Structures are given as structure tokens and as C-alpha cells.
């Protein structure tokens, strides 16, 4: 009897265990509408989500909001795995628009929603939400995803690059000018006043010290001859600036579904239609890019500047340099150099302002120079952060068919609310994020922000026109030239010019400035460009045994490869 009871108990237990697993799985499927945004905006979003939930109680149908932090690429990584379990409303960088749309995670913004978007946001920002089909897929959130130059005034004051009249850097300057200016300080030590936030002595969950809101002014003494200028040439987003400056360009063709079917790049060389032999291409653009990029950290005598700080876009090394100015007791400061200037975006504005105090300033990107002294204006991507609505999220898809439209509309309303003026100003005050909302932009504090002014000046300067549907395409004038080599044989070469031809009236985008947005890069764009910057730096500083930049032939080979990598992607 006892044995039988034991046996039955065994069976019951194993059934219970199964039941436990099943019910635990079921419990995971809670009724939560997820909202994804940056980690450091969590408190703001939670506050405004609570307000929205309060006013729309009846339509939320028992659902409640949940917030989760996601990085720039985080949204796509998660959506590509499970779009139904993903956020209902979420922020993302506009270069992810096409990916997210392909993953089914972006609802079209049309009709009244699009009218709201156009009426309340800067035109260029609205343009950044559009894809090649001309339709808008998101709401503009932040118009600040670009880069420009931050610098410490005391590092350059009184040197050759200084504009005495306006107390700022001269409008045209090169990286080499900055290095020379730093070197001109010699062994002299400069004092400037830094505004330092006081440590509370506590640390947050990541182990970083927590600072109180109060600041105190401290006099910092630095040897600017050892100061560093940093630009992340190892990161494709920044490295692209060099290609755009020297005339590099790309063109992407889409099919009716918005998938890339063809990509053309003019980053290595240009080749007219009908000529297949890449040896006969015109390598001016590629060679200029190589020379200009090289000259951002190599001095005229061929040595690598001691004032250049290389990063691959990873913020960690840069953070160490910033804390040099704020955290003098930090044991990690052995051998660190002061930070004189850095190419970066708004997300470092607050930190740099504290580090540099009154001498904090920002301006447009430097001028690039090739080996012959030809000068090019460095250009950047105009990037935006946008707010998307996920039409495949559980809140919408799990609803009965008749209610889906209402629920989707509710999410659109939420997205509009989260892009509104009130929350935009709150975001700016907390993190320095530059809003896209027109009302928020009119706020006096935002309108006079040094970093945002520099960013806008940089956007003004940039004149890379967007491709294809935006109004331009390329045509070639080809001329066949017959010459004779040393043996007297005929050699045919091609001379050609590349012309940009207006299409659809050639209307430039948005606010009339016309700049390259990130949304439409070729599918395999970032990695080849990243490799370009990385490889060039590593080779010239002797860190690799690759020989991509050893001589003219290998440079040509490498440029061909670079271009091929980008073009092969769309298939």
C-alpha cells in the first residue's frame, strides 16, 4: 500500500512540476505596454507615462505602461527577435528606420498624424522620419544626432588659430593647426577655472560615483602642450565625414517594397557606365580620403602627432580624459593628458561643460587637407532620434479585430505626447538632448545652447545632397583617349567627369540646407567604412602587418575592396 502511495505521489509531483512550468510561462505574458527609450531618460518618461495613463484610463483596457532602457541599436536587436513582445512605442536613431520597418516594427504616420508631425516639428526632422517610399514612419523626437567640435578655450587662446575679436576658434582651422597651437604652449602651464560637481561619496548601481547637483569652481592647472584632440576616426559614423568632404557619395535604389536592390558607392573611385575595368577608374576621391584622414593625425613631417587621441567611438577612453578635469583624486590619472578638443555630439555636452567650466565652447568641424594642400570642408551625417509606433505589438495584435484601430491610434497619441514640448524641455534640462519640437526649440535656454548652436552651424555648412528620390542622380561624361606606351602600342584610357544632375526639380530636403541623413545608407555601409578608419590608423602607427596603405597599388586595391563591399551588399 505504502509503495503504491509513493508511486502515485511521484506521478502527481511530476505532473505538478509540468503544470508549474506551463503556468510560469503563462505568467510571463502580462498585460503591459512597453515603452523603450534611453536609460538616462527613465525618470522623465516614467513621470509623463503616468500622466498619460491617468488621462486615458478608459482606453487602456487594463493594460499598464512599463519602461525599459534600450541603446541606439537595442531597439532593432530586440524587435528583430520578437516584434510582438516588443515595445508599443519606442525611440530609435533614424538610421534604423529601414531596418525596423522591414522587421514590421514601424507603423506608418499618415493623415492627421502626419499633419501633427509637420505642424509641430522642424521640417528637416520630419524628413528624417521618411523612407525611400516617401512615407513617414515615426515622429521626430530629437534633432541632435550629429557631431561637431568641442574645445577648451584656454587651450587655444592666444595661439595662431584664435580669433581674438570673437574670443573663439577661427572659423577655418585644421587638425594640424590645433596640434601646432597646443605645441606652441611649450612647457608653460595654463590655469583655467573648472566647475566641478561635488561627489556625494555614494555610488550608483553601476559603481559610478554619484555627484550632487551643487558645483564648486576649482582652478585647474594644465600643461596644454600635452593636451589631446580626439576624433573617433575608428568609427564609421564619424569616418564618413571625411568621405563626404572629398566628394564621396553613394546612391541606393529600392524596390517597391522598400528593400535595397542596388547600391552604388563613389568612395574609392569613379567609373562610368560601360567601363568594367576598375584599374581605369578615377581614384581622386579615394586618394583624397586616404590623405585627408591621414593628415588628421599625422604631421607634415610624417610623424604621428602626440596630441592626437584615437578612439573607435567607444566612450570609455574619452571618459577617462574628461574625468581628468573633474576628478583630481582619481588614482587612474597616471600619465593622462588634458583634453583640449573633441569631436562628439550633444550627449557629452553636460559633462564637458562641467569639466571645462567657463572655457567650454563648441564650434563646427575642422577643415581637411590633402597632401597637396587642397582643402575640404568636413561634413557629417545629420542624425535624428525618432519615436516609432509598433503595429505588431501585443497590445494591438491581441485585441479583437474591431478594436485594433483604436488601440493603434492610442499608441500614436502616446507617441505624439512623448514628443511634445513639455517633455522635450524636460529632456533637454536633464541631459542636454536637443528637441525637434518647434515650441521647445523656441525656449530661450535651448535657443542659446552652445552645443546646439554649433550643431546647427555644422548642419548649415554641410551640403552633401541626399540621393535618388531626394532629387539628384549622377551622369558621366566619358572621353576615350588613345595614347602610346613606351613600346609604341596604343593604350586606351578614359577621361571622364561626374556630374550631379537634378531630378524631380532637384529640390533639396527640408529646411533647404540639404544634408545627408543616415536612413538610407547601403545595407553593408558601416563595416567597410569602420575598417577603413581602423586599418589606416593601425597601419600608420605600426599596429598591424596588413599592407593596405603601403603603396599606391595596395591603396588602389583597398579602395576597390571598400567600394565593392558597399556595392555588393544590396542583392
Amino acid at each position, binding site marked *: 500500500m505504502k509503495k*503504491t502511495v509513493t*508511486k*502515485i505521489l*511521484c*506521478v502527481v509531483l*511530476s*505532473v505538478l*512540476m*509540468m503544470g508549474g*512550468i506551463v503556468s510560469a510561462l503563462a505568467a510571463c505574458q502580462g498585460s503591459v505596454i512597453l515603452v523603450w527609450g534611453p536609460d538616462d531618460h527613465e525618470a522623465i518618461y516614467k513621470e509623463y507615462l503616468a500622466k498619460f495613463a491617468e488621462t486615458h484610463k478608459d482606453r487602456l483596457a487594463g493594460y499598464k505602461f512599463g519602461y525599459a532602457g534600450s541603446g541606439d541599436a537595442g531597439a532593432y*536587436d530586440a524587435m*528583430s*527577435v520578437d*516584434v*510582438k513582445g516588443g515595445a508599443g512605442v519606442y525611440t530609435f536613431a533614424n538610421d534604423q528606420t529601414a*531596418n525596423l520597418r*522591414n*522587421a*514590421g*516594427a514601424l*507603423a*506608418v504616420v*499618415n*493623415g492627421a498624424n502626419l499633419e501633427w508631425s509637420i505642424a509641430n516639428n522642424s521640417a528637416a526632422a520630419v524628413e528624417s522620419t521618411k523612407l525611400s517610399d516617401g512615407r513617414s514612419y515615426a515622429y521626430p523626437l530629437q534633432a541632435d544626432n550629429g557631431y561637431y567640435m568641442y574645445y577648451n578655450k584656454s587651450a587655444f587662446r592666444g595661439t595662431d588659430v584664435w580669433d581674438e575679436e570673437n574670443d573663439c576658434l577661427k572659423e577655418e582651422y585644421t587638425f594640424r593647426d590645433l596640434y601646432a597651437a597646443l605645441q606652441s604652449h611649450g612647457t608653460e602651464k595654463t590655469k583655467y577655472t573648472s566647475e566641478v560637481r561635488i561627489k556625494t561619496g555614494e555610488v550608483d548601481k553601476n559603481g559610478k560615483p554619484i555627484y550632487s547637483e551643487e558645483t564648486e569652481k576649482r582652478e585647474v592647472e594644465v600643461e596644454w602642450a600635452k593636451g589631446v584632440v580626439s576624433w573617433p576616426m*575608428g568609427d564609421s559614423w564619424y569616418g564618413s565625414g571625411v568621405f563626404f568632404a572629398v566628394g564621396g557619395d553613394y546612391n541606393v535604389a529600392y524596390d517597391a517594397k522598400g*528593400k535595397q536592390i542596388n547600391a552604388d558607392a563613389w568612395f574609392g573611385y569613379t567609373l562610368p557606365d560601360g567601363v568594367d575595368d576598375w584599374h581605369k577608374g578615377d581614384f581622386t576621391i579615394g586618394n583624397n580620403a586616404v590623405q585627408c584622414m591621414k593628415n588628421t593625425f599625422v604631421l607634415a613631417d610624417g610623424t604621428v602627432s602626440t596630441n592626437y587621441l584615437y578612439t*573607435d567611438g567607444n566612450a570609455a*577612453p574619452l571618459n*577617462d580624459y574628461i574625468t581628468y578635469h573633474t576628478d583630481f583624486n582619481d588614482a*587612474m590619472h*597616471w*600619465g593622462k593628458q588634458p583634453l583640449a578638443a573633441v569631436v562628439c555630439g550633444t550627449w557629452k555636452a553636460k559633462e564637458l561643460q562641467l569639466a571645462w567650466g567657463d572655457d567650454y565652447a563648441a564650434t563646427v568641424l575642422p577643415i581637411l587637407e590633402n597632401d597637396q594642400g587642397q582643402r575640404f570642408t568636413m561634413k557629417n551625417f545629420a542624425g535624428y532620434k525618432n519615436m516609432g509606433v509598433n*503595429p*505588431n505589438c501585443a497590445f*494591438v*495584435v491581441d485585441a479583437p479585430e474591431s478594436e*485594433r*484601430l483604436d488601440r*493603434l*491610434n492610442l499608441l500614436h497619441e502616446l507617441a505624439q505626447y512623448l514628443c511634445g514640448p513639455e517633455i522635450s524641455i524636460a529632456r533637454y534640462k536633464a541631459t542636454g538632448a536637443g528637441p525637434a519640437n518647434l515650441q521647445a526649440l523656441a525656449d530661450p535656454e535651448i535657443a542659446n545652447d552652445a552645443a546646439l548652436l554649433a550643431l546647427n552651424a555644422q548642419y548649415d555648412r554641410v551640403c552633401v545632397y541626399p540621393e535618388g528620390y531626394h532629387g539628384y542622380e549622377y551622369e558621366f561624361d566619358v572621353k576615350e583617349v588613345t595614347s602610346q606606351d613606351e613600346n609604341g602600342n596604343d593604350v586606351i584610357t578614359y577621361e571622364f567627369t561626374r556630374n550631379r544632375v537634378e531630378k524631380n526639380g532637384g529640390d533639396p530636403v527640408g529646411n533647404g540646407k540639404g544634408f545627408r541623413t543616415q536612413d538610407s545608407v547601403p*545595407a*553593408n555601409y558601416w*563595416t567597410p567604412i*569602420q*575598417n*577603413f578608419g*581602423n*586599418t589606416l590608423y*593601425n597601419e600608420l602607427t605600426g*599596429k*598591424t*602587418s*596588413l599592407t*593596405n596603405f603601403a603603396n599606391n597599388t595596395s591603396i588602389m586595391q*583597398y579602395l576597390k*575592396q571598400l567600394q565593392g*563591399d558597399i556595392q*555588393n*551588399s544590396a*542583392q
Partner: protein
Amino acid sequence: MRQISTLEYLSMSKARRAWFKFSSFILNIPRAIGRWFRNLPHKFGAFFGKIGGWFAGLFDALRYGNWKTRMSALILGFGCFAYHQIGRGLLYLLYEIIFVLFMVFFGAKYIAKLGTLGDVAQVRDPDTDLVLIEGDNSFSILLYSMLTIAVIVFTLIIWVKSIKDAYNNQLGYSIAQRAASAKDDVGQLLNHKFHLTILAFPSLTLVVFTIVPLMFMILVAFTNYNRNTIPPANLFTWVGFDNFAAVLTGQAKGLSGAQDASRWSYTFWRILGWTMEWAVLATFTNLFLGMIVALIINKKSIKLKKFWRTCLVTVVAVPQFVSLLLVSKMLNNAGIFNSILFSLGLPTVDWLHESASLAKFMIVVVNLWVGVPHTVLTCTGILMNIPDDLYEAAKIDGANPVKMFSKITLPYMMFVLGPSLITTFVGNINNFNLIFLLTGGSTGIADSRLATQAGDLDLLITWLYKLTVNGQQYDVASVIGILIFIVVAFFSLIVYSRIGSVKNEEDFQ
């Protein structure tokens, strides 16, 4: 391979004997593979023979059974009802009803589209231009088809079982005029067939949570499921062996990934090369150094033996990933080593990013630190088990320490360590922690020939991780997964079938 007599062997010099052993081991590998393949038909034969035998019973039942038995093929449990086995009959019937409902409302719609993995894409409702109209979901089709197939296989078993039951009833009834009652059945399930009762639920979970997902993931290797075809907004479909061709030969056209196929194959072979290089290096450096340290600690003249062992155990006691993250910080550009170098006025070294060969060297060194204590512990156990009289006898016979080591200690150790070497080797092929936590799989020195997501320090397993988590290249990742399995299975089988501990199991005392 030339066969030689014992006499011939003994007449060789020592070096030649060692060479002979080594070369015969290597040369026997192809032969072993050949043998394995030659045996394959027999293995298949045996396997299908069993299945066939099972179905033969079914054939008999249908051929010699009466109409009641044959009716059971259509209505499950009919044969049970006919012989007054109401309980069992009801269960069969209930199962049949559930199965039919399952197929009609769930299984059929997925199985029907398994051939194409769906052909209706998701679109927006043309009226509102907002709401989506659901289309086919390739992912669900593939996954639920697998589930349905599992259910169908199970149903097939039940079906055969029911017919055989009916036939048995028919035979039994004609003899004893009574079939087993429901009470008998329950009694059986609690006694003779208790293993079935207790294993039923674990088997179910095994099928649902392991076998079905595994089949799913294997089949993904034959589709174009990647970042361009993510459901439910897109459909993916079958591409046959294109993914394998791209990864192995670089010759496939159909691959819709973000790069040309030749790059996949370049990356695969290069990473495979480093993976094997790493696995051999890591395994043998650990083995030899561990052995040496164990021997040193075990020497009679060494004092504080327990203390030294405790020191080594401490390393094992700290979770590996904690040590690794810590070491990666220490080897950082601004880490403790560079800090010391700097304060001594020496040039600093970027240990893990300076060059691939330096980084690889550092990885092996760090692996020594993490892995040697394990080897030492195992070796110590073996060393303490070697009977002292063997050494005493050897000493009396005039053997020197080197002789004693090579004739007593080493054979003893290798006999025990042999099988564990395989696990270590396989573990190192898949040593995700060390490579990923220490280096992230890359020195950061770009190589334009590598496929996206791959780094110069990646092992196959870390590349696989990056392909799925960061690259959404599920098709290629699945191929890599299958290839890793093949590599690991190959080495395990070869070595396992040829080492002494398996061949001469009885020798060990």
C-alpha cells in the same frame, strides 16, 4: 599502413618506436573513418530492422485480424470496446478525437504551408492605411509544423499500438475469453510498467522543449531566415544547401545575407583554423603545466603541500567569469599592468589590442591561470593513487627518475587523463567565456576580408553568438552550429575510439 611483427617492432630504436606509434595513430584515422562509414549500412540496417519488426507486427495484425481488429485502424479503441475493455477503449477514442481536432484547428494549416513556409505577406489595411492585415508567419509555420510532426509521429505509435492491442485481444479472447481490464492496466502502469508512467511527462517536456526546437534550428540552416526576412512582416523560404555552400566553399548565389559568399567561407576557415589552434594550445599547455606543478607539489621534499593545493583551489573557487572580467580590466590599456610599467618609466603595452599574435599569447597565458589548477587537482589525485611499491621495485631494479616517470607515472596519468582530455579539448573548442569575456573576440584591428560580426580572435562559438545576437544572420549561424557539432563529434569519436583507456579498459588496476 604496413603491418609489422612484434619482433620487428622491438628491434627498432626508441625514437623509431615512438615515431612508429605516432604515425600509425595518425595513419589509422582515415582507416577508422572508412570503417565507420563501411559499418554505416549495418547500423542503418539494424535501426530500420527494429522499426520494420515493429511494423511487421502491424502487418500481421491487419492480415490475420478479424473485422473488429481491422476496424481499430479507423476507429481507435474499437478492438478494445469489442472485447469489453471500456476504459482503454475510451482513452484511445478520446486521443483520436483530440488528434483530429488538433489537426483541423491547428496542425493542418501549418503543415500545409511547410513546403513554402508561407506565401501571403503581411499588408496594411487599404481603408485606414494603418491597421495591419495578418499574413503568413514563416517562423510559426516552421515551428508549429515541427510540433505537429512530433504529434503525428506520436499518433502513429498510438495507432499501431491500438491495432496490436485489438489483435492481442482477439488472440487472448479466443483462449481465455477475457481481455485485460482497466484495473489490470492501472496495476501494470504502477508495477511492471512504472517506468512508462514516471517517464511520460519528462519525455513530453523533452520533445516540446528540446527536440522540436532542435529540429527547428537545424532546419533554419536550409532557409534564408536572416535580418532581411524577419517575420511577421516578411516571409522566409527554403534555400536548400546554399548556406552550406557559401560557408564552406564561398560559391553560393542564393544567400541573401549582407555580403558576398566568398567572405563567409574566408571567415569560416580562418576562424576554424584559430579555433583548432586554440583548442590544441589551450589543452596541452594546461595539461603539461598542470602535470608539472602537480608533480612538484607531490614531491616528498616539498613542505606545506596542503597550503599549495589550497592556493590553487582558491582560483577554482572564484567563478571563472569574475576572474576573466577582472583580468581583462587588468590587461586594459589603463589597467594595473600598464600602470606598473608606466610608474617604472617603461613603455606600456596594449596587451589585448596591440596585435593578434600578442593577444593570442595573452589568452593562452590567462587560460593557464584559469585552467591549470583544475589539471593539478586531477593529477594530484592520480599521483596519490599510484602504489609506492611500484616505485620501490623500480628503484631496486636501478631505474632512474626519468625512467620511473616515463614508465610508471606518465602511463598511469595518461590512462586516467585520456578521456578527460577529450572533454577539455571539446570544451576549449567551445570556450566562449574565455574568448568573449577577455577580448570580445577581437583585437579591434580591422581586417576587411572578414565577414561582418567576425573578429580576429573569435572562435566559432563566439562568432555564432555574434551572428545571432548582433547580426540576426540566423541562417548562417545555424550552419555554423551544425558544423561545430560535426567538428566536435569528429574529434571526440576519433580520439575516444583510439585511446588506451577505452581499448584496454581491463588493464587499469
